[in-house]
């Protein structure tokens, strides 16, 4: 069987950031190879053209293992980062090195099964989606507290950032190539990739699949420490226009309006019913504090909104972005004729 992808077929790039996945790499490459051979054998109008393994200064022997696997398979592209930059930057580098029509990002530890890529693609091309996230159908870690924390964290961030897709965010995603590369192009070191992806498309879907974090279940060690989770949250807030700014502005404005209305009321009382006011001076002082406090909060909110808009502009939030989805049809037709092994 030829290693070269069929000309004119839809190309798929896989990006895998690697930090401590030495134990899983061979199995992952074997699974990816099986998938690409299966697609070739079935004459699918898409092919797995490359798998980009990004060695994020791995703490085990993943780096050398990736190089060895790349020597054995021409479709594997090894990349080595000079230091540990983190999962998101590693994913971004991988995406920027990809040239597939679709880009799949996945973890190294087989929590994300390569065979699900077909299901992701089916969802994407049949619904003209630009991003499809794979979400766990049941608890990932088999640890109630760990799973509850993860869900609660996402819910809180979803409320804070007002992003309806946030609870779907997952590192196992299929992204339309141009969208992936455009988003990766504008990401700075502090930008959250999934937030940036949302700047380029609203056509986002989710599928539910069985996922198990075998590494956590076996070793009780998670890839995410509390520090890295906080860092994740910070990047999400930093990349978004958070609701708190708007809430602050609205509360400030409300306080101002309330103080003006109260001033009118108490002025009327002072003029027509002066005996009703027992303590002199307190009302005007309270109203002045409320008014100027509200004014300060409102102005600060506006300044922060301006600043937030400027930061988003600096972060590369685009004015517009065009996309061509016409290539989906042939893959959708082919997939419609072939049943889904992961319904």
């Amino acid at each position: 069987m030829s290693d070269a992808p069929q000309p004119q077929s839809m190309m798929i790039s896989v990006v895998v950031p690697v930090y401590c996945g030495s134990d899983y790499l061979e199995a992952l490459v074997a699974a990816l190879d099986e998938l690409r051979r299966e697609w070739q054998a079935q004459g699918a109008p898409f092919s797995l053209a490359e798998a980009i393994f990004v060695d994020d200064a791995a703490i085990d022997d993943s780096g050398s293992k990736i190089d060895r696997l790349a020597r054995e398979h021409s479709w594997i592209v090894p990349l080595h980062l000079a230091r540990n930059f983190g999962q998101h930057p590693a994913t971004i580098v991988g995406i920027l090195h990809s040239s597939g029509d679709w880009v799949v990002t996945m973890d190294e530890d087989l929590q994300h099964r390569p065979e699900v890529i077909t299901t992701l693609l089916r969802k994407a091309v049949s619904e003209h989606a630009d991003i499809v996230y794979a979400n766990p159908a049941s608890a990932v870690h088999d640890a109630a507290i760990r799973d509850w924390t993860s869900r609660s964290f996402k819910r809180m961030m979803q409320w804070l950032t007002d992003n309806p897709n946030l609870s779907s965010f997952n590192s196992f995603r299929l992204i339309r190539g141009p969208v992936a590369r455009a988003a990766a192009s504008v990401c700075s070191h502090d930008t959250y990739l999934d937030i940036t992806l949302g700047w380029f498309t609203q056509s986002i879907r989710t599928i539910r699949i069985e996922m198990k974090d075998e590494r956590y279940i076996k070793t009780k060690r998670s890839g995410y420490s509390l520090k890295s989770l906080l860092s994740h949250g910070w990047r999400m807030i930093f990349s978004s226009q958070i609701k708190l700014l708007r809430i602050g502005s609205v509360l400030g404005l409300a306080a101002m309006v309330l103080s003006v209305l109260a001033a009118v009321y108490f002025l009327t009382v002072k003029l027509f019913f002066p005996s009703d006011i027992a303590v002199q001076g307190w009302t005007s002082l309270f109203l002045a504090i409320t008014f100027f406090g509200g004014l300060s909060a409102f102005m600060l909110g506006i300044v922060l909104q301006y600043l937030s808009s400027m930061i988003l502009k600096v972060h590369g939030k685009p004015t517009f972005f065009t996309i061509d989805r016409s290539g989906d049809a042939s893959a959708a037709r082919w997939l419609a004729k072939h049943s889904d092994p992961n319904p």
Partner: protein
Amino acid sequence: MKLLRVGGQAELIVLLFGLGLIGGAVDRALRLRFQAEARDFPYDWQDASLQQAQRAAIRAALPAKTRVAMVWTGGQSGFGSSDADMGQETATIAELIAMAEDLRHERPVDFHMMSSAGGLFESQTHCSEHSLPLPLRPYGTGKLMQEARLEQAASLDRRHVYRPSSVYGVTRSKRVGLVTALISNAMQGKTTRIFGNPNTLRDYVLSDDIGHYMARRIVDPDPAPRAATFLLASGRSASVFEVIERIRERIERPLLLQFDPHPSNVRDMSFLPSALPPDWQPTSLASGISRIITFLRSGLA
């Protein structure tokens, strides 16, 4: 054309035809890295009878028995070339190959030919070392014919073909590549017309990298394969959108852009790193852009 005399242990005469973006880079690399001494000779690309006289003058200037490397880095109108343009270019190259074969009777002669990965692999992505050229326009077909002509010249010592992808760099000629055109126009407040779309993927390589690599190969006295083809790409394609963003980040000036509504050059191209020569070290796109900006700002171009 230029006749460059490289000294050292193995004396070498380089006959460099074509002094555009890549030819200029090869010339600079030979002079800076290998202290080559250059002498200009006229060479007309249109008039065959004039060419004959000019080739005779070049031959007369060659020292006896010295090893010669003939280098073709010419090209007239790039991707938009017609069949006639490419026919004329191929005829010019055929004459030069014939000259090289003739010279081979009296001395060792290598031939280094610049081809084009873009022309040969247009619309192909993830090209590996096994990918076959499938040209889609006269430019690519012409390049393939030129490569075939060199392959037939079996009497020559080394026949090296270089296939660069989308080249950018600084030169006085008009063809500078998208990256340089965007930077140069932004600095002058001019609008850049783009014949692709923002999502078009290309593999951008810096002309100086190609110049240095070719110069090393030309001068290299070690016995190398008699016929070899080198794909000179970065192994990392970038969308036009990314190129614009990278330039915008560094140049800090507005980029005035006009995308052609009926773009003629939208097909993606990309090359797997495993298809590249092991001793080829391309500059990253971000560094290349910074270099071009520094160069243009310093007024050295």
